[in-house]
Structure formats: structure tokens, C-alpha cells
């Protein structure tokens, strides 16, 4: 066996040992639960008539520019989806000849991928568990956009000082004792505001009273670790554009792996010590084993 192959094998074995040691040290990450004061929205797709009053109100209270790109001769504010001008949108979903409207905005996850991604916590869970964005801590790296399973955070691509655009549940209005804009505007109470716990109860109550109408599931109760915006619907949630039905929170795998490896920063320190020590020994030994030099 050549020296190089032996050397390499030794190295691989060492690396494998370290990895196995690291991985076996990994403990399952604790499941995050919604904070006690968590608030949220409950959207009932059976009640929504698609009037988009919520879209208009959202633009008004958040002082967002009209999105005239999509439709008409630049006359209508008609966003097709969430974008850098739109924090809240109503879309039309088709299913088996039936149609349904669906409202899209930030889901305010219980265990958000975006806040886990964000380098300096520009995105973070604030009061009431609302996922907030703080401009001065944002570098504009857009890792949150890579991370968000709902494709919610939007970036002002046209601006030289771009900001992140996403629903913050009208936190400033809440502080003034007002309702979120979309909730206040809705003529049918298709979207209501309240404590997450109470909204969950209300959702289950509605499903129980009309089991024939509703799909027997509250989307957001458990999906992707749970969200503070909840949905009930007469159409399967996949058809409303909710791609993921699994219950595991998105950051789970990454956080388990990384925090396992870096627990207490012990492994890197140990590796540093070993590397230094080996080199020190090698230097002392000189290059006796080396023929050339």
C-alpha cells in the first residue's frame, strides 16, 4: 500500500470518527411552541367573496405603491401574488370545477425558517409572536427568501436601498388598539384576528358544526411546526397553493445538525488544539520521514 493511500485512509478514518462523534452527540431539537400571547389570523375560505377590500386596505395602511404591472393599461392595482408592492393578496384557486379564493400573507410561523436564517436578527419574532423586520439590521442577503417555505418575504429589486416587504400583522395598529388592516376591511369576516389559541378553537368549532362543508383540518395548526395564521377551507389545502403538509418545522434538520456539531463550540476548539499540537510535534520531529526537501 502506498504511503499516500495509507495517509489518506488515516485521514478519512479520523474525519469519519469526528463526524460520527459529532452526529451521535446530536440531540433532537426541542419542538417550539407558540408564545403564550401569540396572536394571529383565521381565514375561512368558505366565507371569502374575493372582493379584495383587504388588499386595498393593506396597501393603504402600509403605504404601499400600487402594482400596475400585471393587468390593464397600468390603471388597475392588480397584484397576481405577493411582491415588493404587496404584503397581502387574494388569489383564485380552481379545484374540480369548483373555485375558491385564498388569502396570502406572512404565516407568522411558530418556528420560522426566516428568523433562523437571518444573520443579525433583522427578522425576528417580536411581541405576540409576530415575525418583524428591522431595516437597520438587514444586509439584504436574501437567505430568508431561500428559507421561507411559503415564499413570503419579498425584496425591493428595483430600489438602490432595497427593503424587505412582508406582512407584520399591522403591529403598529395593534399597539394603537386597532385591528389589522385586512381584518378591519373584510365585509364578511372571512378573516378574523385574535389569540392563536382562541382562533384554533373557533376553527374547530366551525368545522364541527359543518363537517360536510369543511375539509377536516386547520391548516397551520401543526403544518411545518405550526403557524399563527390559520386556514379552514372547503377545498383541499394543496389546491389552495399550500405545497407542504408535513408537520416538521423547516429549520429542524439544519439546526439539529449545526447545533450538534457546534455544541458549546467544543468540537472546533478541540480540532484547533489537535491541529496545533500535531503540527508542533511534526516541527519538533523535523522532516526526518521526508526524503526530499
Amino acid at each position, binding site marked *: 500500500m502506498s504511503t499516500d493511500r495509507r495517509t489518506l485512509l488515516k485521514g478519512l478514518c479520523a474525519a469519519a470518527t469526528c463526524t460520527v462523534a459529532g452526529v451521535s452527540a446530536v440531540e433532537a431539537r426541542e419542538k417550539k411552541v407558540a408564545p403564550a400571547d401569540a396572536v394571529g389570523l383565521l381565514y375561512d375560505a368558505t366565507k371569502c367573496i374575493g372582493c379584495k377590500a383587504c388588499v386595498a386596505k393593506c396597501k393603504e395602511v402600509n403605504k404601499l405603491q400600487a402594482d400596475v404591472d400585471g393587468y390593464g393599461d397600468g390603471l388597475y392595482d392588480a397584484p397576481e401574488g405577493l411582491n*415588493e408592492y404587496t404584503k397581502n393578496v387574494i388569489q383564485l384557486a380552481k379545484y374540480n370545477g369548483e373555485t375558491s379564493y385564498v388569502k396570502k400573507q406572512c404565516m407568522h410561523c411558530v418556528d420560522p425558517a426566516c428568523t433562523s436564517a437571518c*444573520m*443579525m436578527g433583522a427578522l425576528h419574532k417580536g411581541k405576540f409572536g409576530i415575525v418583524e423586520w428591522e431595516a437597520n439590521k438587514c444586509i439584504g*442577503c436574501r437567505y430568508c427568501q431561500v428559507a421561507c*417555505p411559503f*415564499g413570503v418575504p419579498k425584496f425591493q429589486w428595483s430600489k438602490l436601498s432595497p427593503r424587505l416587504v412582508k406582512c407584520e400583522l399591522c403591529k403598529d395598529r395593534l399597539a394603537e388598539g386597532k385591528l389589522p388592516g385586512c381584518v378591519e376591511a373584510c365585509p364578511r369576516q372571512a378573516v378574523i384576528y385574535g389569540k392563536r389559541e382562541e382562533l384554533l378553537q373557533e376553527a374547530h368549532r366551525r368545522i364541527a358544526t359543518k363537517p360536510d362543508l369543511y375539509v377536516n383540518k386547520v391548516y397551520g395548526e401543526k403544518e411545518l411546526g405550526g403557524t399563527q395564521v390559520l386556514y379552514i377551507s372547503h377545498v383541499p389545502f394543496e389546491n389552495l397553493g399550500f405545497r407542504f403538509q408535513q408537520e416538521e418545522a423547516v429549520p429542524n434538520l*439544519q439546526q*439539529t445538525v449545526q447545533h450538534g456539531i457546534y455544541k458549546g463550540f467544543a468540537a472546533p476548539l478541540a480540532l484547533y488544539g489537535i491541529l496545533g499540537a500535531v503540527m508542533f510535534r511534526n516541527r519538533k520531529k523535523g522532516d526526518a520521514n521526508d526524503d526530499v526537501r
Partner: protein
Amino acid sequence: MLVFLAAVAVALIAWRFTVGLGRSTALSDGYPWGIWIAFDVVTGTAFACGGYAMAFLVYIFNKGKYHPLVRPAVLTSALGYSIAGLSVMIDVGRPWAAWRLAKVWTWNLNSVLLEVAVCIMAYTVVLWIELAPAFLAKFKTTGPAKVQSFARATLPFLEKALIWIIALGMLLPTMHQSSLGALMLLAGPRLHGLWNTAWLPLFNLVTCVAMGFAIVVAESAFSSVAFGRKPEFGLLKPIGRVAAWLTLAFVVFRFADLAFKGRVGLFGTFDLYGIMFWIEAALFVLASFMLLRRKQSLGSLLRGAMLVAIAGGLYRFDTFLVAFQPERGWHYFPSVTEQLITLGLVAGELAVYGAVVKYFPILSGTEGERA
């Protein structure tokens, strides 16, 4: 030519900061990361792992005979990492806020990107310190008197401390090259099953070492041609073999992992993902067989090494761009500006490499070569 391409890139960078990212790039809310991240940063720093890989070989496995290859490798690494850092500053939307990374107490310790960013910055500094003896050796005898005396005073001190700097130079890439893989774990269910695995950190680490060795081989072969030097053939062949074995180990482990996860069904899907997966696997295997052949010429060695680099690069492109599945309706193909800036930065890197090698003792056989 290289300088011209670099100049074009500089002009386009100025343009990017005048009109914003929206008009200068093909990036979108669906594909927020493009080639500046997938190539310049993720692939570029893996190409720049030569310094890291060689340090292990020479200082940990005590193979002093490879020492002549260390300095050119470290130079390539230092340039590659500097380019990556520059690319990030062009890519981010609010670069002026980056100074806040210095406020350690505001760090989000859950952010893998933070670890990558801090680690890469630190390693870039480490690389230039590792390279400093080459510059100081030159300035010991040339330049203004003050510079000369500074060089004479610093050099012995630096040589003593270098062991701990080099140790840091092995620790930091181990950390951030693995974490670069971990980055895409957060895309979670939006990353295709053939790439999404908890082993992403290890896979990235193993392939980056293989790519580092491959680039050392390629660079040495090119240098020998470009500067009319005798190729260090006896040294390059075993390094190529190390790269080959690492590559093979990665491929085997990857297939085993997918089989273990019960995703064998995905092998047979004849869609973009299945095809890309098999192209990757074929390139990796082909590259290692080329490097493991007993009879080698400089040309065949070079081809094998380039293939390892390309395969590793493709694996990274796939992980960051192809396997990433945003909502329907989003597309990404790099804009001309993105491509030309990337091309220009690489050209600039090569030009600087040529200049540094010419004026400072980097390549073996030149004066003051021993660190």
C-alpha cells in the same frame, strides 16, 4: 485580455450600484441567489481550498516534500476567497449595513449564514497572513528603507507564530466549507430529494478537499507551461490520486445515503433532476478513474484534475440552483451582467496571480521560498 475583462467587470459593478439589482441581474423573489453565490462564493471558495488541502498534507500528515506546492496554493486560495468576499458585497442589497457584523452581541447564533460569513472573512485574513512571509521576504531587500526594516523585524516573529495561524487556516475552512453545505438544509422541503440530506455538510467538505487538490494539480501544470518551468510531476500524481479517492468515497457514500433513505426511486426519474444527478455521478467517477490510472502524462493528469473541479462545481450549482424549487412560475438564467462580472472577477484573479508570481517568491525554486 484578462485586464480588459476585469475592467469590464469593474464598469458593470459600478452600473449594478447605479441601477440596482433588479435591472442588472436576473435574480428574483423566486431565485434570490444566482451565480454570484452559487459560483463565486460556493464553488469559488471550494476551488480555493488548495491552501487548505495542502496544509493538511504538509503540516498534519508531515509530507514535507510537497512543501513547494503550498505557497502557490495559498496564493490561489487567498485570491479566490477575496473574490468571494467581493462578490458577496456586490450581491447583497444593503452592503452598507455589513459593518454591523462587527457587533458580536447582535449575532443570531442560529444563522448558518452568519457562521459562514464570519468564518470566510476570518479565513481570508488568515490566508493573507500565511502568505505574508513571501511578501516580507521580498521587501527585506527591496523598497524604501523603512519597509525593509519593518520586514526584517516582522518576519522572525511571524515565522514563530505561523504554526497557530496555519492551524486556524485548517480549522476555519473545515467549519465554513461544511456549513456552506448546511446552508441549503434550510431550504428544507424546497430542495430536491437527491440533494437534500443531513450529510450535506460532510459531502461539501469532502468534495471541497478533492477540488482543492485538483486545483493544485491544475494550477501547477498550467504554471509549468505558462512560466516555462519543469512540472513537479512526481508530486502532482499522488495528489491527484488523493483527490480521486476522496471523490470516489463521496460518490459511494452519497449513493449509500440515498439508498438508506429509500430514495432509490428518484434515480430512475428521467427529469432535469435525475439527469443532472447522473451527470454529476458520471463526472465524479470518470474523473477519479482518470486520476487513478497508472500511466499518466501531464496532460492526462490535468484533464482528470479539471474534471474533478468541474464535477464538484456542478454538484454545488445543482445544490444551490437546480435542486432549489421555488413556487411555480419562477425562472432563473444569469443575466449578461452577472456573467460578465463573474468572468471579469476570475480574469482579474488570474491577472493578479500572474503578477504576484512574477514579483514575489511564490513558486518553488525562487529565493526565500521556505516559509
